[in-house]
């Protein structure tokens, strides 16, 4: 690492992501599988309509946090969640770099 500041950032990212992934591994097995607020309310109020009648407009690679093709050796939600954590991290950092203010003369921030 070039500077202490970069080391700090890398450490923060490493710890932060590890903590998040740790949460995914530890907490996912014990989360509630009950329907969430919106799902519950729509179950009750839509009566004749069933949720499956609504077809999503796009095809997703990991619908509902499952991984098609992976045998249920362990909870696919955990793997899907971990993949998602990295994807979200990567894309948001990328967007951050795209959007950040450009300095005319590059100085160390």
């Amino acid at each position, binding site marked *: 690492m070039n500077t202490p500041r970069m080391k700090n950032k890398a450490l923060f990212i490493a710890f932060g992501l590890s903590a*998040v992934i740790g949460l995914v591994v530890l907490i996912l097995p014990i989360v509630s599988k009950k329907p969430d607020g919106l799902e519950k309310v729509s179950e009750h*109020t839509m009566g004749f309509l069933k949720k499956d*009648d609504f077809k999503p*407009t796009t095809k997703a690679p990991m619908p*509902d946090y499952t991984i098609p093709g992976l045998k249920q050796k362990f909870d696919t939600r955990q793997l899907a969640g971990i993949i998602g*954590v990295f994807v*979200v991290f990567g894309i948001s950092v990328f967007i951050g770099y795209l959007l*950040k203010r450009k300095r005319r003369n590059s100085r160390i921030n």
Partner: protein
Amino acid sequence: MHIPDGFLDTKIWIGMGCISAAFIFIATRKANKTLSDKHIPLFGVMAAFVFAAQMFNFPVGGGTSGHFMGGALISILLGPWASILIMTTVLIIQCLVFQDGGVTALGANIFNMGIVGGFLGYYMNLFIQMFTKSKKGLFIGSFIAGWSSIVLSAICCSIELGLSGIMPLRIIFPAMTIIHALIGIGEGFITVAVLSLLTRVRPDLLQLQKI
């Protein structure tokens, strides 16, 4: 609270899409002025945390569960416009990769969770802190910010659904509001927990210029 495709009337989802697009555009301009290298690690880690935390449903009684939303937490740390950008990123990935929330409903979902959640969370926290002393103030403010952001988001969500005609407003408005008043307690606690952790390990991150 992720609305799937097909729940919203065409006029509503197009309208919400336009409103959200406008806010996102403004948010990118604001970020362009203020976002620096210092913000980026927090940007990424908070986005990752919010994504993960949204998977952790907790029961709130009545056979229902809720999950953390994150708009208030992110806006308290990084500012409301940053919250819009981060929540949008998370929501789009959830939608396209995991089919969590409909593509057409993105505008409404971004509005409810990113824009309303972010702005209300940010300003509610500031407002509460005007009346409280420094350290306790952040925790009281962020708890109330977290709680109220969930409730207002749920209210907006139920109005969109009610106006779409698919569910009667007189039923879903109270139902969503009451359920999310309970979920909001969880949001408040998690918001405070993350902030108190950061206050202890990296207090400098709380001093970043807000976007």
